[in-house]
């Protein structure tokens, strides 16, 4: 399992980058505020949508806020912790990956901690506020608390997996960074809305292929005490941890084969 010394190394590298970013203090503050604003305005957008609506396919603003907050929080955790893995194409192109390979720290730890940035705290704060607000409308039971906590952890795991897995495409083609965005940020966007606004095929795809439906949709149905609009079995509402672990495992496999495939650019 997770080796604690690696976690410590990760922390040290991350701390190094925080201090480096602080060399431009104005930029540092503006970056954090700006990122918070981008996601904050995102929610204002949803709110404006509801000025023209009573409900979105049967979901009220509070319920959509719960979906939005939980997905955004999961993405924020993953993005803050390992978002740098997106930059792997740059490391390959510039030869930095070769340097990293010579160091006695696992490659994945180095890549994830590299260019660690606290600016994503903006998103984390904003997502927490929206999620907290939406939570006040949930009719809590002990089991719902358990499901909510496992939803956030599993959601972060799913996004961890998507970030790592899709970034590996860059081992084969180094400049296709944006391809991964369709699944990571696209996954975060798709989960902002109730899944029943999409056709059935999309629901199937987001359950079995890119399992972002487990990030918030299924557990939130349970938290809200709603029947599944697609008539899916209720057991899916508790399956998020499984989806998280499976996504993560698949991503690590892809990562290993990516690293094996890697041959230096040689320049």
């Amino acid at each position, binding site marked *: 399992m997770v080796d604690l010394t690696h976690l410590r190394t990760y922390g040290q590298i991350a701390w190094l980058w925080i201090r480096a970013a602080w060399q431009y203090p104005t930029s540092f*503050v503006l970056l954090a505020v700006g990122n918070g604003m981008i996601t904050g305005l995102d929610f204002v957008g949803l709110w404006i*949508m509801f000025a023209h609506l009573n409900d979105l396919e049967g979901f009220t603003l509070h319920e959509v806020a719960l979906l939005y907050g939980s997905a955004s929080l999961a993405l924020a955790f993953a993005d803050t912790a390992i978002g740098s893995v997106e930059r792997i194409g740059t490391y390959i192109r510039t030869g930095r990956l070769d340097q990293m390979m010579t160091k006695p720290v696992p490659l994945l730890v180095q890549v994830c901690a590299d260019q660690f940035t606290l600016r994503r705290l903006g998103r984390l704060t904003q997502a927490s506020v929206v999620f907290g607000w939406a939570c006040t409308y949930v009719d809590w039971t002990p089991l719902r608390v358990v499901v909510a906590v496992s939803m956030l952890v599993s959601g972060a795991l799913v996004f961890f997996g998507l970030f790592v897995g899709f970034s590996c495409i860059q081992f084969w083609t180094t400049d*296709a960074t944006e391809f991964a965005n*369709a699944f990571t940020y696209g996954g975060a*966007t*798709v989960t902002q*809305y109730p899944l029943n606004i999409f056709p059935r095929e999309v629901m199937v795809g987001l359950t079995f292929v890119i399992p972002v439906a487990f990030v918030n949709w299924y557990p939130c149905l349970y938290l809200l005490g709603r029947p599944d609009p697609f008539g899916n079995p209720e057991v899916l509402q508790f399956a998020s941890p499984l989806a998280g672990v499976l996504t993560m495992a698949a991503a690590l496999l892809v990562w290993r084969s990516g690293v094996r495939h890697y041959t230096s650019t040689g320049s």
Partner: protein
Amino acid sequence: MLHVAVATRTFRRYSTYRAATLAGIFTNSVFGVIYSYAYLALWNENPTAGGYDAQDAVTYVWLGQALLMTIALWGGGTTDDLAERVRTGDIAIDLYRPVGLVGWYLASDLGRAAYHLLTRGFGPTLIGIVVFDIALPASPLHAVAFAVSLVLAVIVSFAIRFLVASTAFWLLDQSGVKVMSGAFAIFFSGMMLPLVLFPGWLGTLSNALPWASYVQVPADIWLGKHVGTGLLAALGFQVFWAVVLLAACQGVLRLATRKVVVQGG
């Protein structure tokens, strides 16, 4: 002639990254599909929201995805090169060249925009036409006006990005200001949600700010929401902001050159 040469070189520079372009078209299209369904759900519930019908709304989504890179909504484009040259001090060389800096970078950015329009613009638009049956321009006149409006949109966006990059003269690093500016651009351009849906004073304000030139104005022209003098007024709005902001760029550059301290000797 010089500026045309600059523009074509930049066009070619951007066209080097083919896989990146394909990945980008794919990603824009995924977002196009997501937003299309979200808007369809909205207009299904409220069929006349903001004076659009469902087809207008879906067309708007795909136009937004097509314009995203062309107008460099997130910031970036060739003005990133400028900011980097300020940070490294190479800007000193640029400043004693016998060519205006604003014109040089504008030409370069138009070259970039042309490449992004041909690839990242046409790609998602085609997918939108095939998959979601989006509306075509209301008339040939509107198609021509849309093209003009698009050039103006790039110029307005360039001027704002140039101003953002110029902050590097004082802050040395533009990234913070760039993210802030990007946040405003996404919200006030109508990229996130059409400005026609913005209620009351927020709607009035956002339709008066320069960012409205990015997506809302060109999209409304495409959809045929402006006719006759209204069409001229829409283009006039963009010209106004283009002129004001380009003048601001010149002004800021004059201030900045007085302040240039070349680093690293």
